[in-house]
């Protein structure tokens, strides 16, 4: 009984490694675009809002609305909706790179709001002090905002990573591959419960690792 179980698991090892790579690709692409584009978008939303350093009601309303619309889509529907764009960007509509396109879009919108929230927590007086010393907006963004909010920003990225680990599983449904896809194909369709258990355990451990490292990093960078 137990030797059959081990054999099953050994048989699936190559698939498991392949699936881990696919999950890795999806996460890496999704998170980098979220960090760069979502980070920039969130910063602009913060600067454009009422009383912000670059207050602009029209842009805040339009871009904020776009972010909200994107976030309203159930992820599976978003994936299907953006297939034409996916084909243009990734050259195909299946595989981890293709799945990374809707993942990135969802991640950018989600992270933009998280960044806006994190920046909002900075006391107004600190920003005012920088303004009154003649600092330009870019100087304030990079030397005050990102410095004061770096711990909340690290935690926001951590929580984004955890959410998107489960999104990558959904991406498997439309041929994205990944660990979640493996669990469904072998564990669910072929009734190999042990594989379902192993993959789920892997995901649980992964989530714990991500959260704990995020917490440690955030603490390391906080001097408040």
């Amino acid at each position, binding site marked *: 009984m137990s030797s059959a179980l081990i054999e099953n698991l050994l048989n699936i090892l190559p698939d498991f490694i392949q699936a881990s790579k696919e999950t890795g690709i999806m996460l890496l692409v999704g998170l980098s675009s979220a960090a760069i584009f979502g980070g920039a978008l969130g910063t602009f939303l913060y600067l454009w809002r009422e009383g912000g350093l670059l207050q602009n009601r029209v842009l805040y309303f339009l871009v904020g609305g776009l972010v909200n619309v994107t976030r309203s889509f159930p992820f599976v529907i978003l994936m299907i909706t953006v297939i034409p764009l996916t084909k243009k960007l990734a050259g195909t509509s299946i595989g981890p790179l293709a799945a990374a396109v809707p993942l990135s879009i969802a991640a950018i919108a989600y992270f933009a709001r998280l960044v806006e929230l994190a920046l909002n927590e900075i006391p107004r007086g600190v920003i005012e002090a920088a303004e*009154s010393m*003649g*600092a330009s907006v870019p100087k304030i963004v990079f*030397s005050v905002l990102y410095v004061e909010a770096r711990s909340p920003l690290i935690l926001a990225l951590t929580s984004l990573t955890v959410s998107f680990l489960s999104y990558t599983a959904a991406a498997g449904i439309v041929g994205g591959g990944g660990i979640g896809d493996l669990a469904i194909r072998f564990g669910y369709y072929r009734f190999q419960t042990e594989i379902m258990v192993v993959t789920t355990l892997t995901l649980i451990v992964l989530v714990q690792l991500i959260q704990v490292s995020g917490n440690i990093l955030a603490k390391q960078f906080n*001097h*408040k």
Partner: protein
Amino acid sequence: MITVTNISKKFGKGKDAVTALDQVSFNVCEGEIVALIGLSGAGKTTALRSLNLLEQPDSGSIKFNGKELLTLGALELRQLRTRIGIIFQQFNLISNRTVFENVAFPLEVAGYSKEALVARVEECLRVVGLYEKRDVYPAQLSGGQKQRVAIARGIANRPHVLLADEPTSALDPLTKEEVLTCLRDINQKLGVTIVIATHEINIVKRLASRAVIFSGGRIIEELQVKNQKIEAKHEFTKRFLEVA
């Protein structure tokens, strides 16, 4: 040095508008310590914050060394602000920057070279007596030390004038003394002109040479401080001096 003429400022619009400043005029002379005093909501803080345009007056004129401030463009305003230091009641230090890095901030803005920056930051930290704390983060300092770091930051770029918005109001009596001494030192030894907004009459008596009394957004009177005493003429000021 600074001439303020008939500035007015309203907060809010229409019926809910509150008049913060109503035709206020005063001036600040080179090298002096002038105090803007009054109760909460009297307009002293708004008047102080108008001097570097943290509040933009609705009308009137503010001349700084002959130059009109209210018509400055964004870039000119930023350049002007590098020459006006300011400290706040809540210190407003950057908590994830060390003491050294906080004092360095205005010098980075002003475009100092690396060596000049290090030398000037160290000089300013010595002036406020916190050289040993250079690599410490603000959270590890007492309130008085935080305000002294803010003073070092305020004078780092050799400003013509230092604005002080309720600089001792968040401090206990002992640390008030520490900040008071520090402000007097930079005025007497470095010749920095200081404008201080406060409701603490003791601070005014001990530090200032002149007091401008605010009430309801107007200036009631201007008084000389002699031998740490203020001779009030106006009824309101007499009452204020008694209770404060």
